[in-house]
């Protein structure tokens, strides 16, 4: 499970970094989304990977059989904030497309 998760994070990050370095705004937004998926998985992973472990603690139970609830709540917050800022970016992207007439990140095509 560790291998699959780390491979997933790695591939998402690599694709995301490549995409945000591209000159088109649509590629940049997809890159940012992929990066934020990778980061969310990463946050989820720092709590340690456990199967069938609930994050709720009861009295007298062995603490090792429970998942850490803090990364789960952190990732929830990160998802909400990431979603909101991506939506905001989408609006700005459309405004930029409308004002400049191009989808280049600098607002003008590179001189050939």
């Amino acid at each position, binding site marked *: 499970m560790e291998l699959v998760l780390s491979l997933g994070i790695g591939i998402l990050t690599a694709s995301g970094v490549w995409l945000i370095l591209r000159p088109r705004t649509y590629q940049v937004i997809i890159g940012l989304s992929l990066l934020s998926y990778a980061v969310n998985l990463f946050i989820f992973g720092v709590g340690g990977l456990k199967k069938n472990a609930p994050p709720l603690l009861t009295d007298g139970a062995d603490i090792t059989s429970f998942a850490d609830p803090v990364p789960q709540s952190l990732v929830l917050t990160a998802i909400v904030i990431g979603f909101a800022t991506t939506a905001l970016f989408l609006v700005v992207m459309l405004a*930029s497309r409308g004002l400049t007439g191009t989808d280049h*990140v600098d607002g003008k095509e590179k001189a050939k």
Partner: protein
Amino acid sequence: MSGFSHHLIVAPILIPFAAAAIMLFIEERNRTAKALISLASTVLLLTVAMFLMRSAHGMDSPNGEAGGVYLLGNWPAPFGIVLVLDRLSALMVLLTATLAIPALGFSLARWHNAGAHFHSLFQLLLMGLNGAFLTGDLFNLFVFFEVMLAASYGLLMHGSGQQRVKAGLHYLVINLASALLFLIGVSLVYGTSGTLNMADLALRLADLPVERRILLESGLALLGIVFLIKAGIWPLNFWLPNAYSAASAPVAGIFAILSKLGIYIILRLSMLVLGNDTLPMASMARDVLLYAGLATVVFGAIGVLASQALGRLAGYSVLVSSGTLLAVIGFGGATASSGALFYLVSSTLTMGAFFLLIELVERGQDAGASMLAVTMEVYGDVDEDEADDEIGVTMPATMAVLSVCFSACAILLSGLPPLSGFVAKFTILSGVIGANAPTATSAAWITATLIILSGLCALIAMTRTGMRTFWASIEGTVPRVLVIEVAPVLILLTMTLALTAGAGPVMRYMDDTITMLSDPRNYINAVFEARRIAEGAIKP
């Protein structure tokens, strides 16, 4: 602090939040109501900030009364989120409110009509700033950071236009990417140390097993990069002059404190986490801050000299002040650090005034006039015949006021006496070189030389621009300026004058702040000794 006044710590977050929420329900046409609510909220914020500053002594009282720590949700530290009010955070909250009122007043003249929801966004920006200054929890810091940034995206593009949207797009991508780095850093810190509370982190750092330390240090380094991007350190600052010069004047005015937020967190975390000099990463981090800060000063100074438009000149001046602050924080030492705090206050007020002033000055020139002026200077193509017309022409009062404000800004930016920029730089220099000059290290001399040279560059650039704008203005029409627009500039400049006149008490406050910060145990004890309200521990 006792009883009700204890709850005032959370007020700098709640007041702007409530104001912003209420204003969303008011129709966009009803701008007078919005302006009044916004102004009332900001003035209330200033009052609360002044009260908090007076009561910020809770941290260092001998019997450890933790009056300055507010437990959100009444959970004891380190389990719940804490707000911590010490001298440093009180100073920053007060500075925010002080800068916000003139910026808001300036916007009332015309800028708040330029787009929707200006006042709500402005209040949310203040909320994010205050929250980030007050919080004692790393993840909570992230949340307030995002609140502040989301509001700043909207404000930066306030007024729309191709230039603003383009600069806003770049600003947005940079900050979204750095937010992701922030998350990676925070989760690394949590994964290795098991805590997000800053005080708890500082405590656990000392006895962390070696195999975990490398991950923790990478996490902290990532966090550092995020705050340095915000502060505008070289080479991560290419976006800053574009963004700041594209923003509308009142927005750029309040943005003067955004880069200082990055510096505040660097100062807070470096004092708290790197305060323990036995850690191997402490000296490395200090070196990085010092040399990257110096590189920023050089980059900013070159930018200041090279700028033709006033907006870009101001943007690069922000970089110079950030670089100076970071270099001095990296250099360390009590006198230099309290000088740096003084410089922080002084330069924030200066930049705020300068950004507001630029718009008024440029109103008189048609677009492209400044470019034309430079070209004509270079090629010596000035029409000599025009000299006759200048005889007997009186200088209009507006131009006189503006030019006095402009020269005050020039004096402040270059750090000449008699204004507060001089006091700040003098204290920094005397702290860096020390009482005994021959024993000062080469790093100290380099720092001192670069700080003085950056002042010289600012002076040259400002004199050149000033002469072009006010003295030899080509077809310059007198700008139509309202009193409500020039008053905020005058207020900010008067405050720098007051800073100079009251330099003694202010510097004592800064000294106390640095003394308190230099021993992290003050902060850690205060956070851990804060007791829940149910136990009746809030002392009468």
